């Protein structure tokens, strides 16, 4: 069960959304799904729930800088995320964001170890290869994927792929991290294990995390409260245990 408070520090960990709007799939002419104000700060876990099609994943992708909001201002750690040249994200700020996609988005042609090393190499080119490999092996161990270094994603079960995707996201030490339905499609036993592992990893991690889930049992494992996206707005709700 989630602990009563997961707040740790409010310094440099903040998501501020001022009346941001977004269309389904960020399509230019679609109806707007929501108009949202957010002011979340501190190392904590925010759980986002809501009916299918209401725009949970769309909100997550908008907050995470995958899609630009149609309207409104979005600040991450006090800086405008979309202040890059033209319609580009602020690159240095983007480095502080981690995203774990619903479909895992693993590199199918790369081994488990390389799936962890490749994005790390891009983000931290100054790190030595020796240290990178040691970090990656350590992460594989933390997510209970020891001895899978040389396996390809298709050789892993759904739960193992999910653990690899979580490890890849957290190995990049993001300050703000988004998880899109990390237990979708998993059986209840695996799903419970993944949520427990994720909760423990996030407690250790000095990050502000936002997790979308459809499963109230998993939500309870991650946080005592959740945010419901309904009728275009977010409302906070206490999760009954």
């Amino acid at each position, binding site marked *: 069960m989630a602990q009563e408070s997961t707040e740790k520090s409010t310094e440099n960990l903040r998501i501020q959304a001022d009346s941001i709007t977004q269309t389904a799939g960020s399509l230019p002419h679609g109806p707007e799904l929501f108009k949202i104000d957010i002011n979340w700060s501190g190392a904590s876990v925010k759980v986002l729930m809501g009916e*299918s099609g209401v725009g949970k994943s769309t909100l997550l992708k908008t907050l995470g800088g995958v899609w630009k909001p149609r309207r409104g201002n979005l600040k991450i750690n006090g800086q405008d995320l979309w202040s890059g040249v033209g319609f580009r994200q602020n690159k240095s700020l983007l480095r502080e964001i981690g995203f774990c996609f619903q479909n895992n988005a693993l590199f199918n042609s790369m081994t488990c170890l390389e799936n962890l090393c490749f994005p790390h190499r891009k983000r931290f080119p100054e790190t030595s290869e020796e240290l990178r490999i040691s970090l990656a092996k350590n992460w594989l161990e933390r997510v209970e994927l020891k001895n899978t270094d040389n396996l390809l994603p298709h050789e892993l079960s759904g739960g193992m792929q999910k653990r690899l995707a979580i490890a890849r996201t957290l190995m990049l030490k993001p300050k703000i991290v988004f998880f899109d339905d990390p237990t*979708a*499609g998993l059986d*209840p036993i*695996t799903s419970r294990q993944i949520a427990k592992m994720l909760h423990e990893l996030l407690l250790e991690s000095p990050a502000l995390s936002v997790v979308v889930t459809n499963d109230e049992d998993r939500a309870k494992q991650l946080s005592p409260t959740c945010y419901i996206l309904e009728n275009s707005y977010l409302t906070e709700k206490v999760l009954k245990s």
Partner: protein
Amino acid sequence: MIRFQELRKSFGSKNILNGLDLEINTGEVFFILGRSGTGKSVALKHLVGLLKADSGKIWIDDEEISNYSEQAFYPIRRKCGLVFQLPALVDSRNHYENLVLGIRHLPIEEKKNKIEWALEAVGLEKLIPNLFDRFPPSISYGEQKRLALARTLLPNPEILLYDEPTTGLDPKSSVHIHKLIRGISLNEGKTSVVVSHDMRNALATADRLAVLDAGQVVDLGTPEQILASKVPMTAAFLEDLKA
């Protein structure tokens, strides 16, 4: 009636089905539960010839289909509608074109009526404006799942096979889809076989359930019997309900 007898299937060195024995009655709403990789979807795919067993036999009604050729499976596939785990919609076709894929031979008016019924049944009718002209990537994953379910219902198959029909859906939509599965079976006498991870809805919907482990049935019974079961795998599945 659907019957699996001593069904075995391996992928390389991985044994998925290890002598599966299972009988599903006509008109029954039957749920198959189990951990990922335990052979639930694999068993379902054998029924429509998407996979061939290494050994063992499969019957649908009085027909033994285990060794059918690809061509012999055509009428079986008309009899059995399969709702895939992923929506499996054709992204380059609009929603109307996706829906009519299995009923192209019908007159336009009949197609229209059937589609109206199916969309209402899956609760999509009022959810999305200009539904027909839009394309799958423009709607959410949950909406795509409902659209795929509507497409399977349209040709009116006798047996409905659902491979995790509510994965990725919110609890309210899951309840709605499960009630729909039950309703279709009761009202139209269709046999429904549902592979699922959703214990709450499975227990509320099923006539009977089977729990699979390592490619074999380890528990079988009515929702009441499953709830009272002492089989470790079943108990582990029920943990959330008892928390």
